[in-house]
């Protein structure tokens, strides 16, 4: 049975979760990427191990985190380690896949999470963003990168204002290796309207799968370059009821998927504690 009543953010989480394989070690960030990781563990990838840059390895996710440093990021972890060790393990090649968000992306999957300044000045940006965090480290060294972001024209740009995290750099063959980067670079870009992959020769992003009800022209109009489209363009299935239920249980107060306005729907801390505990995912461990 499929579910026809879902939000674009929910579809994005469900499509992202399909990019993970069982037994992989995934370096996750906060927000929707984390929800996607939780979802994968409840369906096709029960042995997926999540890793957080704060030093938590293999937690059992029973409640959502609001940042990678929440105590919840450590719930029932297999190993509670340090930040520098986890980054060392990243360079050693232990982590198969990383999930990153960004404010801007170009056709080669280079990401900007530092500042928006257009033709202006990095030192006097229009919008100061958080910065690299561990994003650059993950994008440099993890096996492959899944990017998650909203499909919007001001995000999918010809040139990022600041290259925080390398994708395929200028797209020339061997560009990453020449720079000294270890990982294979971006493998997928999951958005709220469509899924993109990268051509193995040209390293350019192309449209692979469109979500139900989305028009190709809308996708093309949301991308700041002449987007290539797969000859074998697919349409994603509707999410199943089971997927949507799992997703909504994982984020019971809808604070991650729904964003800031959802906080106002809670009467206070008592309701927050109650909802969190009632929906805590407990399996025999």
């Amino acid at each position: 049975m499929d579910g026809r009543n879902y939000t674009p953010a929910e579809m994005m989480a469900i499509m992202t979760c399909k990019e993970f394989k069982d037994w992989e070690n995934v370096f996750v960030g906060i927000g929707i990427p984390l929800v996607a990781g939780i979802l994968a563990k409840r369906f096709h990838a029960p042995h997926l191990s999540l890793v957080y840059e704060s030093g938590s390895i293999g937690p059992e996710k029973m409640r959502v985190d609001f940042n990678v440093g929440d105590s919840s990021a450590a719930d029932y972890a297999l190993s509670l380690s340090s930040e520098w060790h986890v980054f060392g393990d990243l360079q050693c090649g232990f982590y198969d896949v990383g999930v990153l968000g960004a404010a801007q992306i170009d056709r080669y999957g280079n990401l900007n999470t530092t500042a928006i300044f257009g033709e202006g000045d990095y030192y006097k940006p229009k919008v100061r963003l958080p910065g690299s965090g561990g994003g650059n480290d993950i994008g440099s060294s993890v096996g492959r990168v899944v990017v998650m972001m909203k499909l919007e024209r001001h995000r999918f740009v010809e040139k990022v204002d600041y290259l925080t995290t390398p994708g395929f750099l200028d797209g020339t063959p061997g560009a990453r290796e020449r720079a000294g980067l270890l990982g294979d670079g971006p493998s997928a870009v999951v958005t709220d309207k469509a899924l993109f992959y990268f051509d193995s020769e040209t390293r350019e992003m192309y449209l692979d799968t469109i979500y139900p009800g989305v028009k190709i022209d809308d996708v093309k109009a949301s991308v700041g370059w002449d987007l290539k489209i797969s000859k074998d363009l697919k349409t994603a299935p509707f999410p199943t009821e089971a997927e949507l239920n799992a997703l909504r249980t994982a984020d019971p107060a809808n604070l991650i998927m729904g964003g800031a306005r959802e906080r106002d729907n809670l009467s206070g801390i008592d309701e927050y504690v109650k909802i969190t505990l009632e929906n805590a995912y407990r399996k025999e461990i």
Partner: protein
Amino acid sequence: MMSVSSKVGSNNANKVMSLKDAVSKYAVDGSTICFGGFIGRDCVAVVHEIIRQGIKGLTVIDDSKTDIMDLLVGAGCIKRWEGAYLGYGAIGLAPNIRRAVEKGVPQPIEVEDWSNAAISMRYLAGALNIPFMATRSMLGSDILKYNKRIKVINDPYEGKPLALVPAVRPDVAFIHVQRADAMGNAQVWGFTGNDENKVRAAKHTVITCEEIVSPEEIRRNGNLTIIPFYCVDAVVQVPYGCHPQSCYGYYAYDVLFCGEYHKTSSTREGFLKWLDTYVFGCEDHNAYCNKVGWSRLQKLTYLERQFNRIHA
């Protein structure tokens, strides 16, 4: 280079002091500081006290430190930030950081961008007392373009590109832990961030903790003592010292309080009102807890202990 004898002589059996005294002694105007934890175990109470004492001109060198940096920047305490991440995760961007960088309000701050692994390596170099460390991060990125202190070399053994980052030797590290003894042996549960390296790199370390326990209690689980006494200058008991952030095994993240801060601080006026209420309007951390409400804090403890407990 730090001389090998420069830290000797700080040993004694009782390093316990008040938060007020520890901050005024070690966080002086113009000093370079870092904080422990990784968003969770943030030194929020320490930062409130720094703001109350009006300390200015600070340089913070750190990995991901949003909540406390947003407060410090908004309160005008910061001259310079060398770090990796200032954002509220799923909550949003950092309002005071944005105002300072974009508009110079209340004052401009110098920002030098690094990645989390780069900052981790800078602290590891500091902890090893060597001048730099190498990383495979940041290569090919614009972080290199704007930060000339990162040196890309072809490594002398394999000839491949590698980024060198300089050691950090901050004046003081403030680290919040679950338990410490009066001598300064500090035990941490949960992930440990870069704490073990920060305390070794820093010239002085102030430990704030949920509980002070006996050295005998510490000896039962020496594996948990990631910070040994000889790194530590002061020990301060500050229960709920991370609120609204979490402290593993003690209390969960107060997402609603943090969200309220974020909303209120979206305007400069709102932020100043927040400071008046929760920082200047509270004589000390105990008064802050009174204002937040002990019953609220205990609910966060109740929530956390459904998931994580410390096993001593």
